């Protein structure tokens, strides 16, 4: 076996261990055996035909085709009777609104064409998300067109309203159960509605919320707020398991802030330093400069150790009896030193939902003087989630028969409450169960009255994601079905409501609470709607105040028992000692999040950023455990704890804490919709209530065992490997030159450390000069680009791998989703993918394992290998440097895909829009939206749906380029740099992608291209791409203890 160098990148454990399967597969284009026999069996093809039938069908088909070719279908053109002024057929309208895929409330712009929303983009004027949207938000437009929504109420609206009115009037306690409400208007509506009942309560329930932070601040500072974390001010970030770039509280906002500190200015190179102590491998952890695996049972000890280290520096007395986790000691010391040297501009966060843990975090931040600098308590965030204890109380009250009427708004406790049997039992004791629900899900099915609600794109609302910042939700389409916004239902059920329209309620509240006296109230409201929100004057009662008011009793209790301040000894006692056994971490996966919006093929087919698995949930197994018990990917594992067990396939991740396994939530649905139903297992029951909080870690009584069975996983990482280091690989093909050192060492991801970068600007990119020199000879004619020359650059330093670009690309370009079976057969249609590479020893627990994410799309090569092999000129170069794919010329030889060194071309194996396979429940209807008349409204009318048998790939959003150029021509003005944004670029929360005209020397892209960090992927094969990358700079100047372990580490063989 070839010996691996320590700085080698590998794309997965199979490659690292050079398994026989991997070796066998790497010589082939398709590394795994294609299940051709299955595919071509009579059963799979769905036909049982003999020769005569075949001839008959063939003959008929031929005749039908010949006849069809002669026929001109009569097309009708039906104009408006009275055209609305605001609708210009053929021209997109953009509406500012707010994303409601999670509680973060990012500002979005919704693109509508002919009155139907087709694309979500970030609103650059949003004060927090600043133009970014995550993958879930990008995909949310497809949820709108979900034809499996509840389309009409269980009885006509008038009857339903009367039934609810009589239920409320019937006496007994009325409870409204909602998700975390960020809207002051909605809170007021709920309050007004409940006021008419004798005894009532409003309970909020977030199945995967983080409520410990607010309670910790209640204990420490006397006000129950989740502060705003300002990563943009933090030079040192230490995170204990908080996946703040992927799923934690407000990931887009945090990514914006975090990445602004990771961009390196060549003049004054500096960047933030990020430490991550975590048990599973999170997206955030993969971006850390130093990531130390710490078992879930020991994260409290790790946190307390950090407290002790900081306390020692601050001259405070340390907590006694803390056993620092062995592997983390050095890392914690380094983190403490960094934090202390960055006092006042550092930040410590924890993903734990344990109040005591969060109190320790607060104490550390307080010692570091971060409050008021990187932690803003004056702008509390409403994004974190509701108090789980309220829900627990409600369930016991229901079981005691104390609730007469339960009105559930868009919640699904039967699925995601930790003890759903008890909830269901309690529900049976409630006389009137009303479900205001988006679909007839597990919970709504048990309700007697079912009222369908609107999608947020059909709704009005005013949100207050952060105190003093109001974000408006405005409808972009009329309700598609006979649904009603839930607030309007409550208004209809409120006797003395002045209006049953949510728009009136929003306008009235907005203008009365916020109007600052400038201009008319109408203009004030309209400006806010147009811009998507308003920040400035404060409402007399913010959402935060309203929530506090709801918890007045609790607050009083706390105030009596515990005055504000830090009691670390008590917190340490509450955290308890380190636990050694196996542990489960229940986490949210990027895209799926808490599972609320997961009935969406764009989300289900998005590869998980770390494991690259599509469509399934799985249990992540640490490499050390896998080695000890010889577990490989796809082995079905039985995971049990607290009387609940699931059987899920294993996915082995390197450098995951040795005793911790991770399972993500959101799967295991039975009534979640046809896309998500019966996929994976439900992990919510593992996350039980610990006191008043939901605990997302299980540290006691966990057993993980192999069942001996296997399951196929649709994992995309290995589909597209490059093999540069061996002959037969891409570089091997350029024979005669492969002895040159620069070529051998050239890898598709280039990285360096900050110190090296400070020394020389081209650090990590040293071999580029040599490659360019060798490449200077050419036999090819160069393409002339006299107008524009489009180029793109991806800053690997900023890219976090969050995958928002992938979904954005898919929705923009009508990319078909193909389902698990086809992805497993390597027929995914992703125009853009993010490759994840590891570097280092997979069982190293000292933080030396490093990760790189690399978005890869068509590189638009000037010397395009695909263009030279196409026999029908279906892929040709444009005079603007684009590699054009002409679908109607393509005859499907697939030579181009074969010849593409980047493996970014995708072949249409099926008519994804008409082959029933892609609309079958059996396959979870991966492309079902293209089949039904509602779902197909989401398609972008400017991009053609590709037919079967043609090759397709990234077009660099040529439709957007054409649109931008036309705008410039019509205005008779030169095209501004940045006026055209590709879909991936627009959605990127980290601003990692730059696109523009290389002919303009002043453009941002030209500056990137001349940067010393800039390189092209596989530059040595001289494809001359117009897409390039900037080297990744890590702020880890190889610590002393790494150098030691480097000397002692021998390469492991399994």
């Amino acid at each position, binding site marked *: 076996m070839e010996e691996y160098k320590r700085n080698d990148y590998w794309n997965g454990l199979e490659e690292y261990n050079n398994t026989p399967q991997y070796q066998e597969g790497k010589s082939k284009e398709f590394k795994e055996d294609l299940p051709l026999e299955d595919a071509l069996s009579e059963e799979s093809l769905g036909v049982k035909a003999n020769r005569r039938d075949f001839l008959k069908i063939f003959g008929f088909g031929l005749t039908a085709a010949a006849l069809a070719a002669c026929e001109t279908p*009569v097309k009708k053109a039906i104009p408006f009777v009275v055209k609305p002024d605001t609708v210009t057929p*053929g021209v997109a309208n953009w509406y500012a609104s707010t994303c409601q895929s999670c509680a973060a409330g990012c500002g979005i712009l919704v693109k509508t064409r002919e009155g139907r929303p087709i694309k979500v983009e970030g609103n650059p004027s949003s004060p927090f998300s600043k133009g970014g949207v995550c993958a879930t938000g990008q995909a949310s437009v497809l949820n709108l067109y979900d034809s499996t929504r509840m389309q009409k109420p269980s009885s006509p609206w008038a009857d339903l309203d009367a039934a609810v009115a009589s239920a409320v009037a019937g006496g007994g306690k009325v409870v409204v159960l909602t998700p975390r409400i960020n809207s002051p208007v909605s809170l007021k509506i709920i309050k007004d509605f409940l006021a008419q009942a004798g005894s009532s309560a409003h309970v909020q329930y977030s199945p995967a919320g983080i409520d410990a932070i607010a309670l910790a601040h209640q204990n420490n500072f006397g006000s129950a707020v989740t502060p705003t974390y300002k990563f943009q001010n933090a030079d040192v970030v230490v995170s204990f398991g908080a996946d703040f770039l992927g799923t934690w509280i407000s990931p887009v906002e945090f990514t914006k802030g975090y990445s602004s500190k990771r961009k390196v200015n060549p003049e004054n190179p500096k960047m933030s330093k990020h430490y991550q102590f975590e048990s599973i491998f999170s997206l955030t952890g993969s971006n850390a400069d130093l990531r130390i695996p710490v078992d879930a049972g020991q994260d409290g000890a790790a946190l307390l150790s950090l407290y002790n280290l900081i306390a020692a520096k601050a001259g405070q007395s340390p907590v006694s009896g803390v056993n620092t986790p062995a592997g983390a000691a050095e890392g914690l010391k380094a983190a403490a030193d960094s934090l202390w040297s960055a006092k006042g501009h550092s930040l410590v966060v924890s993903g734990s939902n344990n109040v005591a843990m969060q109190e320790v975090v607060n104490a550390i931040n307080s010692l570091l003087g971060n409050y008021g600098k990187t932690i803003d308590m004056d702008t509390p965030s409403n994004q974190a989630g509701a108090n789980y204890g309220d829900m627990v109380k409600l369930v016991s009250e229901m079981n005691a028969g104390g609730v007469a009427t339960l009105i559930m708004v868009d919640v699904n406790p039967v699925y995601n409450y930790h003890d759903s049997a008890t909830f269901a039992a309690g529900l049976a004791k409630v006389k009137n169960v009303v479900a205001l629900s988006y679909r007839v899900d597990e919970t709504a099915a048990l309700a007697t009255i079912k009222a369908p609600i609107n999608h947020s794109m059909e709704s009005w609302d005013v949100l207050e994601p952060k105190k003093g910042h109001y974000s408006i939700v405005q409808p972009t389409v009329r309700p598609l079905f006979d649904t009603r916004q839930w607030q309007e239902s409550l208004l209809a059920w409120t006797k003395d409501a002045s209006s049953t329209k949510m728009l009136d309620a929003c306008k009235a509240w907005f203008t009365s609470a916020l109007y600052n006296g400038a201009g008319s109230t109408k203009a004030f409201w309209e400006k806010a709607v147009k811009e998507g929100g308003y920040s400035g004057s404060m409402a007399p009662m913010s959402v935060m105040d309203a929530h506090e008011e709801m918890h007045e009793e609790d607050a009083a209790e706390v105030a009596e028992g515990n005055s504000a301040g830090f009691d670390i000894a008590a917190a340490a006692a509450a955290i308890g000692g380190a636990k050694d056994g196996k542990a489960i971490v229940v986490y949210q996966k990027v895209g799926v999040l808490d599972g609320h919006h997961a009935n969406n093929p764009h989300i289900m087919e998005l590869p998980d950023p770390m494991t690259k698995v599509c469509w399934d949930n799985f249990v992540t197994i640490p490499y050390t455990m896998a080695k000890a018990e010889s577990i490989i990917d796809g082995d079905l594992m039985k995971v049990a704890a607290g009387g609940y067990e699931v059987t899920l396939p294993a996915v082995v991740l390197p450098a995951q804490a040795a005793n911790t396994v991770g399972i993500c939530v959101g799967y295991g649905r039975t009534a979640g919709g046809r896309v998500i139903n019966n996929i994976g297992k439900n992990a919510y029951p593992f996350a039980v209530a610990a006191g008043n909080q939901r605990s997302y870690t299980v540290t006691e009584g966990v057993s993980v065992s192999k069942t001996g069975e296997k399951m196929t996983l649709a994992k995309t990482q290995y589909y597209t490997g490059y093999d540069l280091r061996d002959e037969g690989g891409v570089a091997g093909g350029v024979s005669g030159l492969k002895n040159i050192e620069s070529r051998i060492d050239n890898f598709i991801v280039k990285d360096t450390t900050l110190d090296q970068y400070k020394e020389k600007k081209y650090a990590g990119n040293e071999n580029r000069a040599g490659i360019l020199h060798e490449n200077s000879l050419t036999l090819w004619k160069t393409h002339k680009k006299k107008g524009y020359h489009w180029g793109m650059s991806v800053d690997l330093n900023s890219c976090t791998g969050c995958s928002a670009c992938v979904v954005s690309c898919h929705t923009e370009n009508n990319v078909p989703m193909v389902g698990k079976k086809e992805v497993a057969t390597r027929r995914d249609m992703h125009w853009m993918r993010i490759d994840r590479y590891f570097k280092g020893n997979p069982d190293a627990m000292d933080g030396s394992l490093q990760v790189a994410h690399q978005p890869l799309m068509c590189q638009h090569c000037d010397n395009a290998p695909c263009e030279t092999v196409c026999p029908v000129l279906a892929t040709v170069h444009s005079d603007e440097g684009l590699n054009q794919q002409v679908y109607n010329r393509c005859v499907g030889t697939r030579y181009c895909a074969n010849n593409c060194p980047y493996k970014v071309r995708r072949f249409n194996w099926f008519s994804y829009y008409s082959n029933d396979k892609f609309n079958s429940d059996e396959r979870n209807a991966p492309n079902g939206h293209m089949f039904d008349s509602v779902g197909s409204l989401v398609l972008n009318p400017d991009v053609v749906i590709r037919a079967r048998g043609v090759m397709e790939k990234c077009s660099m959003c040529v439709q957007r380029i054409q649109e931008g150029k036309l705008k410039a021509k019509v205005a008779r003005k*030169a095209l501004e740099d940045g006026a055209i944004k590709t879909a991936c670029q627009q959605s990127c929360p980290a601003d990692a992608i730059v696109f523009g005209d290389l002919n303009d020397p002043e453009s941002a892209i030209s500056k990137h291209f001349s940067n010393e960090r800039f390189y092209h992927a596989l530059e040595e094969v001289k494809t001359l791409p117009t897409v390039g990358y900037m080297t990744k700079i890590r702020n880890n100047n190889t610590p002393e203890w790494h150098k030691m372990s480097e000397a002692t580490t021998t390469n492991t063989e399994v």
Partner: protein
Amino acid sequence: MNSICRAIHSKIARILPAILLLSLFFAFSDASASTMGSIFSFNAAANGGEVIETLDLNFGIGQEATGGSLSVSRDSVYTSLAVIVGVLALVVVLLVFISANLINLIRVREGEEAYSFGGTLALTGRMLKNRSVAIGGNLVLFFGVIVFLTVTARGVGLHQGYQPVQPIKFSHTVHAGTLKMDCQYCHSGASLGKNAWIPSVNVCMNCHNASGVGEGTITGTEEIAKIREAYDTGVPVEWVRIHNLPDHAYFNHQQHVVAGKVACQTCHGPVETMDEVYQFSPLSMGWCINCHRTTRVDRDLYKILGREDAATVKTVEDIGGTNCARCHY
């Protein structure tokens, strides 16, 4: 004299079969075209012009059948050409017979045996069995078929001359011709974006409102009443779309009308003379490309846009107008 005659004779004898074949071919193709044309025009007429689907096959003859005002189309020119070629071929055959008779006279006068018709036929038969003639004939036939199929196939999906019956007898002659209304008064989308729009009824009602024009000079009140009815009932008018581009071709009116300053008539023909609109241009890719190759561009615009070679660009092709991804994406 003798030798000359012999030479002539042998040459004629050799080319005779080929001439026969050619004249037959022309005669047949001519006949087939006109037969098919008449069949389809009969269909169209029999069904009151409702089978608009088949109109594209009628080789221009349906034009007259449905009462189009245009008397000479390109297709009818082809038809007359074919007729002329057929007549000429007939003349050639006659001349061959005349000269053959003359040759026979000479032969009889010189005491040689005269050619009989049967003898000529036998000779022709022998010649047809000749390998090289057979190959040559087959080749001619083969390429003939290919040419025929290519020409036909290139026309598939093209509907030049398509003139469906519209729900309202709206006359562009009156509006755009006599009244000289600007095209973009109604088709105002042309300068705004991709679609030119068929005007919504409220645009018609700007003039045809209750106190406005209620009675036309040609078609009378009946058609205007239809607009008012649509306006009052809110049921939109279902026009039949004439210009259909396939889905894989992107076309933007604004690009041509505003940026390219192309007159509507360039593609849509003399609409101001059309009582009933028909598709003037083939809307084929070749037609698009030809226009892009010959149309001059506004150099000043490209100077403003900062194009490197703005001073020398001539046609749309020079600015990339024949690149695939300008229209196909």
